[in-house]
């Protein structure tokens, strides 16, 4: 058991079955164990359908109970999430762990200005710090052009920064980012990858970064978990798991 010292998140033997009335239960995740240290970025790599997103939802205890059977342990700073009550979970979600999704246009309310968009999150969790410092963290100027804009008026990179600002509003211990760079061009991906590492170093925020791009993970993550068919089949530093020079074209 021992050795769970400075972990922001410790997952042990997480097993998830999809229960169906007519078919036998299908195993979606098998005995997944890993740890995310405080102030580190763990990458999760795998093909679509291998269980990456299910894992993200299971960590937040968001898989609906009769349909999914979840066993094992998910501890955030030594607090067990899988047996927590719904009101305890509400305090954890967004405040201690937050989620960043693939498509910022879907994650943002299209009829709210950026200012209100982010203020709403802070209000919901009773935070009163200024928007300026929050926007400074994610490298967005807190100017009227940004603050008074509607999501569609921003570029893709700016939108994803607003979503990250929302995710950071409560200074969570852990950010789960599920394919956050997919809709962006390479220049924006490199910028946001640097932003993640900056936030890790400055605020000691931990990230679980889900991606199907080895290049993104090699650049961003400290540790990489490789998932296949619901199991973690390999783990190590990006150099150890991807090797060198395997995916370069010309």
């Amino acid at each position, binding site marked *: 058991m021992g050795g769970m010292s400075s972990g922001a998140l410790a997952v042990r033997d997480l097993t998830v079955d999809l229960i169906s009335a007519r078919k036998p239960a299908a195993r979606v995740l098998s005995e997944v164990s890993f740890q995310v240290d405080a102030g580190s970025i763990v990458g999760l790599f795998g*093909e*679509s*359908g291998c269980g990456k997103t299910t894992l993200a939802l299971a960590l937040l205890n968001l898989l609906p109970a009769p349909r999914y059977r979840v066993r094992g342990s998910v501890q955030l700073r030594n607090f067990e999430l899988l047996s927590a009550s719904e009101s305890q979970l509400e305090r954890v979600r967004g405040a201690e762990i937050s989620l960043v999704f693939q498509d910022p246009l879907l994650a943002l309310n299209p009829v709210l200005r950026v200012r209100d968009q982010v203020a709403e999150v802070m209000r919901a969790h009773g935070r009163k710090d200024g928007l300026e410092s929050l926007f400074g963290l994610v490298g967005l100027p807190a100017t009227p052009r940004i603050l008074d804009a509607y999501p569609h008026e921003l*570029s*893709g990179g700016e939108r994803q920064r607003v979503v990250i600002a929302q995710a950071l509003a409560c200074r969570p211990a852990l950010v789960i980012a599920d394919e956050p760079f*997919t*809709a*962006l*061009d*390479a*220049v*924006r*991906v*490199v910028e946001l990858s640097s932003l993640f590492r900056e936030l890790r170093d400055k605020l000691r925020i931990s990230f679980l970064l889900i991606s*199907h*791009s*080895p*290049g*993104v993970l*090699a*650049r961003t993550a400290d540790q990489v978990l490789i998932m296949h068919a619901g199991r973690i089949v390999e783990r190590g530093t*990006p*150099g150890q798991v*991807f*090797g*060198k*020079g*395997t*995916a*370069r*074209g*010309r």
Partner: protein
Amino acid sequence: MAVDPFLSVRGLGKSFAGRPAFQNVTFSLERGRTLGLVGPSGSGKSTLARCLSFFDIPTSGEIWLEGRNLCALNRRQRAAMRADVQLIFQEPASSLNPRFTAAQIVTEPLLIRRFGTAKTRILRASEAMETVGLPRQALQTPALEFSGGERQRLAIARALAIEPKLLILDESFAGLDLSVQAQVANLLLDLQKRRGLTYILVSHDLALVWRLAGEIAVMDHGSIVEHAAVADLLARPQHPLTKELLDASLALSLDGAPA
């Protein structure tokens, strides 16, 4: 007699309520070649793709395909040439009716064009399925039950069934796994070899485009800022945006990663 290029786009532009999405776009493309169209989001790539396939009507300029100016055609004539140019969208899931079977999806464009009989349409559909590497038996399967890569194949099969000459792929690889991307890329190369298809590949992923395209046009703020053969573009990028995109793509390749 001078030989017209297969596709020639001259001074093409499209504005929405007076605001240009792109302007003064000029390029030509030979048959059986692939043009990669790259640029940041919002640079006008997708609107250009939609105009080239007449999902949107350009506000200025000309599109010449095999010596005919498509912009000068009337609606009826344009409908007839639509089969020649097919657009494949980004998200295969949302471009397919989930309640249709594969057979319904692939035969739909044939039906709209009143092609042949029900029997010949199914025959054409099963040929198209085979071409993209899906089993004929899958014709009766609902779209919902295909995986992401299979859906993208299905979208390609639908486009191929009416035997187009030019295929425009708008971010058709986004969201697919690397292994599936490679499969679809190989499929496209193979089809090009066998049928002499011409492609325009729209993507913000320069790394993907340089594997498939012979030439690349870089778009920024609605204009083509650089257009060159792939080897030249990689060796001697001219425009700052091209350099920036190239540097970022290299940074994201495994070699460029910090140790």
